[in-house]
């Protein structure tokens, strides 16, 4: 408890300092890192903890992004850019916070609807079904011109996302997932990951405990999508597609099967490409970033096939104890 408050304060302090000292670019990088953390940690719910191989996260992000963008868009500009919007949407403008939450909720709802039939599938069958879901969402967004402006996407979204929103949502996400994981709900998920039959024979409902992480994860993916949209300020159907899903899975795998792992993976992947960029700019060999990243990735996988953190978590209390902050 005290450790938790310490952490909140320290992170808050860091955020404050960053907001004060960093330039726009570095601040944006930090904000994206936060969004990556939200994405990775929420995807870990299904992929790392429940053993469901989902590649559908970008679809939920897309839903959250589009919904929240439409909701925060000023009605005057909507009248010009999206004239065919249904009446109630056309006149609506919601505060950012609310819009993002609604985006998350609708993403979660869609996860619920798609999850019911699809979660009967396992492993790669599930992976293909979630890829399919993502493509379907993408096609719908592309073709529903009147709502989404088709391939052009929505631009001119107000850049509401700042380091504080990211900070809050990172904290909420990590806290939620951490709490869930250390309760009967999280243990039920782990059980399903390890052995579905045994889990069922102990009274754990497969339907419920597969849907639960998917829906919860989708909520945070939707929120992350909303933050993303209001950071990039322009979204298109292809902003949220398979390569992004792959990127997220990469984060989880090199990080390890834990919250700590997901965070490490997200930060590592997010930082590395920024760190390598000067190298690429200096050599003018474009593609070098990806090549170096890939080689690094291979090296990590060969050295640490279970990910950097494995399935271990950082124990905040003992961390502070060892730092002699807490007695």
């Amino acid at each position, binding site marked *: 408890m005290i450790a938790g408050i310490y952490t909140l304060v320290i992170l808050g302090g860091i955020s404050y300092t960053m907001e004060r000292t960093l330039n726009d670019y570095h601040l944006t990088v930090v904000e994206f890192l936060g969004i990556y953390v939200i994405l990775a940690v929420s995807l870990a719910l299904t992929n790392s903890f429940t053993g469901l191989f989902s590649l559908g996260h970008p679809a939920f992000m897309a839903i959250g992004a589009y919904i929240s963008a439409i909701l925060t868009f000023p009605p005057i500009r909507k009248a010009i850019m999206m004239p065919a919007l249904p009446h109630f949407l056309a006149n609506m403008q919601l505060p950012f916070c609310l819009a993002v939450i609604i985006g998350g909720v609708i993403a979660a709802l869609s996860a619920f609807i798609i999850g019911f039939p699809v979660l009967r599938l396992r492993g790669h069958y599930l992976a293909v079904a979630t890829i399919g879901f993502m493509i379907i969402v993408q096609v719908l967004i592309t073709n529903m011109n009147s709502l989404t402006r088709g391939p052009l996407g929505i631009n001119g979204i107000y850049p509401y996302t700042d380091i504080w929103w990211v900070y809050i949502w990172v904290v909420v996400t990590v806290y939620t997932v951490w709490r869930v994981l250390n*309760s009967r709900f999280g243990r039920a998920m782990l*059980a399903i990951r*390890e052995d579905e039959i*045994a889990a069922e024979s102990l009274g754990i409902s497969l339907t419920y405990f597969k849907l639960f992480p998917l829906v919860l994860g989708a909520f945070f993916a939707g929120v992350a999508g909303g933050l993303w949209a209001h950071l990039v300020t322009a979204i298109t159907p292809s902003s949220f597609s398979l390569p992004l899903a792959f990127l997220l899975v990469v984060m989880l795998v090199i990080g390890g099967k834990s919250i700590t792992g997901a965070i490490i993976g997200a930060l590592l992947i997010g930082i590395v490409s920024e760190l390598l960029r000067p190298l690429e700019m200096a050599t003018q060999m474009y593609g070098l970033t990806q090549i170096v990243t890939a080689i690094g990735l291979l090296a990590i996988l060969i050295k640490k096939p279970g990910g950097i953190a494995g399935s271990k978590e950082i124990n905040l209390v003992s961390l502070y104890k060892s730092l002699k902050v807490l007695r």
Partner: protein
Amino acid sequence: MLKVDGLKKWFGGLLAVNDYSVRLEEGEIVGLIGPNGAGKTTVFNLITGVLKPSAGSIKFEDREITGLKPDKIASIGIIRTFQNVRLFGGLTVEENLRIAHYTRHNYRLYDVFLSSKRFRKEEEKLFSDVSEYLNLVGIYSFKGYRAEDLPYGIQKRVEIARALISKPRLLLMDEPAAGLNPNETEEIMELVVRVREMFNLTIFLIEHDMKMVMGICSRVQVLNRGELIAEGTPEEVQNDPQVIEAYLGRKRVA
């Protein structure tokens, strides 16, 4: 407490269980024996809902449970162990037991987020229970090991502890003594008898170790090619010529 009537199970063209019936009374230990492939495990799979019966009915405390999903049946209080040991292999022994505590919790999702009193109370109970059950089965020293790294014999015990901690009313055990040496088997026998008394458990037991079956069962059923060929006290069954012919072998009689 458990009433099974006219149970049948077809696998393609194979009638693995034919017209099987059983009654279990509260607190009994009943044995189910028979040659390999007789259909014993299949009977367990049918009772626990892992397989759907082709015909017949299963009642638990007068409640029809035929065709219910395994998790429903488990939450009513019928828990099993598996012949081929199905632990949560990647997790530690301790975690295996915590998971099984599942059905005994009542707290809700919001309790988790708020870390409510109810949540904390139940989780504390969980921690003390896990230690208690680990000790009960004699595997406390293994609590930090990953289950799949453990030797077979210990895994069998972990599975029993895991089944017990979920507080079953009826416990189905599929060959708990397989892979144990005679001494260890005796320990398991004692354990089974002890927990039956402690928790007023009803136990249905599949086992090929005759010492165990004869030692603790009050009644024994013998299944052969899906059909019951004998039923009675251990002594009666042991001397049944059909059972000797099909299962025990002549050597053992001597």
